[in-house]
């Protein structure tokens, strides 16, 4: 383009584009504003928006799944075993509640709203709500306690649980004692027969070991079961087949 033409073209374009710009802004002057007056007017939240957590304590069985799922460890749960005579009722999903939950704290200041705590809950009692305005002046106010038990209730539950535990421990001790006695008896019995059993019994301990793993968690049993390895092969044999 020759310079003169370029010059006039530039001037023409300058004026033209300014006018186009003015037209655009003028048309926007009358388009409705997209802003909303926030505190009085609110946007509709999308379905499944993740905001503040809520725990329905009536349904919580204290299983600690949510706390374990949480990547930032902001859920603190403490539980107390209930005694058989306490009836804690059932959850809305029909599960029996076995644990008191004296502490259920969520530090919402740490929470990253990832929602990972929601799906593991077996009773669907921890969930995201649509509340998002919960600013506080003191960050300690952001630790939400959902537990519903009063201190007195917690104390009784503790005492009861302790008592139950003690009883259980006593039972266990008794059981252990009984088992030890049984073991002693057994040890005496096979000793007499050892001459006849030993050739067959020799490979038994290795094979029977995996079988023993199953019932292992059942408390106090392992000790009682242990001696069976040394039981006569007539018992152990058919079990493995």
């Amino acid at each position, binding site marked *: 383009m020759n310079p003169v033409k370029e010059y006039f073209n530039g001037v023409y374009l300058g004026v033209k584009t300014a006018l186009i710009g003015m037209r655009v802004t003028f048309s926007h002057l009358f388009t409705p504003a997209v802003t909303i*007056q926030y505190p009085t007017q609110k946007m509709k939240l999308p379905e499944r928006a993740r905001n503040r957590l809520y725990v329905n304590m009536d349904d919580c069985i204290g299983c600690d799944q949510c706390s374990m799922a949480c990547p930032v460890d902001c859920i603190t749960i403490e539980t107390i075993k209930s005694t058989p005579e306490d009836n804690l009722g059932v959850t809305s999903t029909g599960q029996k509640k076995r644990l008191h939950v004296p502490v259920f704290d969520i530090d919402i200041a740490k929470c990253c709203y990832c929602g990972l705590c929601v799906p593991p809950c077996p009773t669907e009692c921890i969930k995201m709500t649509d509340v998002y305005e919960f600013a506080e002046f003191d960050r300690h106010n952001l630790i939400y306690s959902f537990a519903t038990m009063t201190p007195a209730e917690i104390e009784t539950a503790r005492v009861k649980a302790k008592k139950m535990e003690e009883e259980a421990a006593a039972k266990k001790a008794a059981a252990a004692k009984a088992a030890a006695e049984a073991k002693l008896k057994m040890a005496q019995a096979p000793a007499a027969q050892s001459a006849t059993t030993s050739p067959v019994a020799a490979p038994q301990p290795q094979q029977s070991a995996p079988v023993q793993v199953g019932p292992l968690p059942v408390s106090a049993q392992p000790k009682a079961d242990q001696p069976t390895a040394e039981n006569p092969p007539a018992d152990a044999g058919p079990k493995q087949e």
Partner: protein
Amino acid sequence: MEQFLTSLLGDTIWVHIIMGALPLVFILPYALVTIYLEMKIAAHMQDRLAYMRTGWHGTLQPFADILKLLQKEDTIPTAADKILFLLSPYIVFTGTYAAFAVLPFSKAYIGSDLNIGVFYIVAVSSLVVVGLLMAGWASNNKWSLFGALRSAAQIVSYEIPSAFAILAVIMITGTMSLNSISDFQSSGIQNWLIFGGPFPMGKKLLLFPFMLIMFVIYYVASMAEVNRTPFDIPEAESELVQGYNTEFSGMKFAMFYLSEYANLFVVSAIVTVLFFGGWASPFGTFMSGPGWDAFWFITKGMFFVCVNIWLRWTLPRLRVDQLMYVSWKVLTPFALFCVLAIGLIVVW
């Protein structure tokens, strides 16, 4: 009006004081309205709402702004040149306010009907440059100084095309008094100078395109003279913090602010007088009279203020070299050519 006041109060100093203070009575509410308008127009052009909380649709916000500025601590940098620093906002405002003296608000009210009115305006508005330079220099801040220098360079450059535009009008009307220029265009919209003035049809048609170009030139130049976007490089927030008024706060800043808006009205008023009939009613004798005159003058002035705001929120800021290019390589040659053409047409 002066005669009326004299007959009322006698030939005392009060007459002059009232005459002198009247524009101030206009400027203050005008500034409040314009601040509000500016924010609202800006917001709506960007599909926002702007102030909504203070009063109905935020109408009380300008008052809140003023109140805030009044309460603000008035700081003076220790390294600043105190006297110049303190003086500069008032000089800027004086320069702006002095221009109001010759604005014909109505046929009956003009502060002083000087026979060199336009020339006087061109002269006193240069005082603003001095004030800005003082402000920038005295702040002892490099951004302020840059802003002030840019502002001076810009105003001086743009005074040339705007002077040519004024010259063209003076050639046609044969007078420099703003009142007479308005009077020249009275009796109907077809007589406004933008449409060729009160001449026979052929001459009007010949004049019309040149007057249109002159109007555009003057409007662009005046926008640059009041340092408004797209010519706000003296304030260029992104480069210079806030330009020459960076170091000012409280009332001194308010003075700058006020004079910016007052200046905006002055240039809009001059555009009105030079090209759009000043106080003259667009319907000839219908709706004319001292009160109506003031109404038309202020309405037309406000219209151009709004156009200025509209442009401000449309166009981005020019670069310094582009600014100089527009002034020296586009506006000035076009203005020269138009002055020549208009001169020939008028003589013919």
